[in-house]
């Protein structure tokens, strides 16, 4: 994507209650959740977001409730990647497990502004801010987590393992 993706920029401590408010948790249909994504901090997001856009945020993104509905809503919105200075740990696990790409990069997160154009290479972790003409490398994932992502998420990973008869730890 030569022109890069549009950046939606948010601050620190974006919690899962604002990513998808609990009043909508009576459904888990991804498209229905996406219709309310970010609603309580950015009421225009759900309507204006385009496939491939990038969410960029400060520290502790996804804090609070463990609801997997939050990364599901973001993924179903068409967002291609979330770049943050840091992630809350349950959100981090959930994103890996459902195959929502995330990258931790404080420098890229601090520099980006709402509306910037950004290009993200998930394989290398290279984040290019086309508006500012800068590049930053995100910390690479450990091989174990790449294994889960390469398998297409935790369920595919577990399924492959159990069919290989290598279940461990009982």
């Amino acid at each position: 994507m030569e022109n890069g993706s549009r950046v939606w920029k948010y601050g620190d401590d974006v919690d899962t209650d604002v990513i998808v408010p609990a009043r909508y948790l009576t459904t888990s249909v991804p498209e229905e959740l996406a219709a309310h994504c970010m609603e309580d901090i950015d009421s225009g997001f759900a309507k204006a977001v385009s496939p491939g856009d990038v969410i960029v945020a400060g520290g502790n993104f996804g804090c609070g409730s463990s609801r997997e509905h939050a990364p599901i809503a973001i993924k179903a919105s068409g967002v291609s990647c979330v770049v943050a200075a840091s992630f809350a740990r349950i959100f981090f696990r959930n994103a890996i497990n459902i195959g929502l790409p995330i990258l931790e990069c404080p420098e890229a997160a601090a520099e980006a502004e709402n509306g910037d154009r950004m290009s993200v290479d998930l394989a290398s972790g290279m984040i290019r801010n086309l508006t500012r003409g800068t590049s930053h490398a995100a910390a690479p994932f450990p091989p174990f987590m790449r294994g889960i992502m390469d398998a297409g998420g935790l369920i595919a990973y577990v399924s492959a393992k159990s069919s290989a008869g290598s279940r461990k730890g009982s």
Partner: protein
Amino acid sequence: MAMTMTQKILAAHSGESEVVAGQLIEARLDLVLGNDVTAPVAIREFERIPGAAVFDRGKIALVPDHFAPNKDIESAEQCKAMREFARKHGIENYFEIGCMGIEHALLPERGLVLPGELVIGADSHTCTYGAAGAFSTGVGSTDMAAGMATGVAWFKVPSAIRFALHGGLGGWASGKDLILSIIGAIGVDGALYRSMEFVGPGVASLTMEERFTVANMAIEAGAKNGIFPVDEKTRAWAASVSNRPYVEYAADPDAEYERTITIDLSTIRPTVAFPHLPSNTRPASGSGVVAIDQVVIGSCTNGRIEDLRVAAEILKGRRVADGVRCIVFPATQKIYLQAIREGLIEAFIEAGAIVSTPTCGPCLGGHMGILAEGERAIATTNRNFVGRMGHPKSEVYLASPATAAASAIAGKIVDPEEVLEAPGRRG
């Protein structure tokens, strides 16, 4: 190499003689928990696993508590999906509403979590069981699904922050004020990815209920888990809920901690977290004039019998201020019945409060006490994020049962000492 208490439990459950911070391990699970919001998503994922079967019918707990009793047709469908899954797979620990409660009060009460055990739950407040000397942590629905199928989960071994507690709480100060003070000091990401290990002579002065409250809110500092050492109070509690054997783990004396924070419990005062972060704390006595529309006493954080006793002690013989709605939620059916027998429910109703069946309800803006635009609530719950209890322009102030009850009488946020002549339950 020396290990923290958390690391000892993780090592024992992964078949390793030792683990170090940062290591990725696969650990055996003693219990996998889900509720009516998270389990339906987990069930959908579980059924994608070819030939999926649960790893152990006795080691899965399913609790309809968030939107239960069913608040609408959609939530009824979610509860039904969980109920049918429980029947199909013979899940032993499914709790229909007649024997239900808020999951993190219910599971310890039922003896389903004991010291040294390893628990994951698809609910962020699963960290509550660290009070019992267990390792427990919140995960998402997909982790729950994989846990139900395999009985194992992957973890990154956490480093730890040590909280050395000295002295004892005084006046109306409680475990809630302690954990709010800690979150106020270190921030909502102050323990991100880490364990919070509570140690020191001050631990003995905390009741089990207070320890559950403290561990419950470890997630509000970003922690992976919060954990207390096993002592005489823990053993007495464990014996009162179960006759299952358990293993006690203790941190090595020379275990490494990222830092140690020393706290003199006698300095803790009634504390309120202002909107919109649990770390935005101030002394209750310095709140200024914050008029309130609603008071919520209950939740997985503060809905235990001791919490209700404190609230009833303050409300008994007094009146909830005109124009204030005060809602009390006992956390489980057993606690509810105990509160009836002790006359606490009568005290609440005579004071002008209402009492609800156990549910997570208003804490997450689900049902049973939603706030309108511009309304303010003081609540003994755990989160005050934007829109948490209702309208995005409503406000939630977090506090202890004593502070919430006293504020209900005053109609504004107060330190309990401001409305009560007694110097506090601990004198």
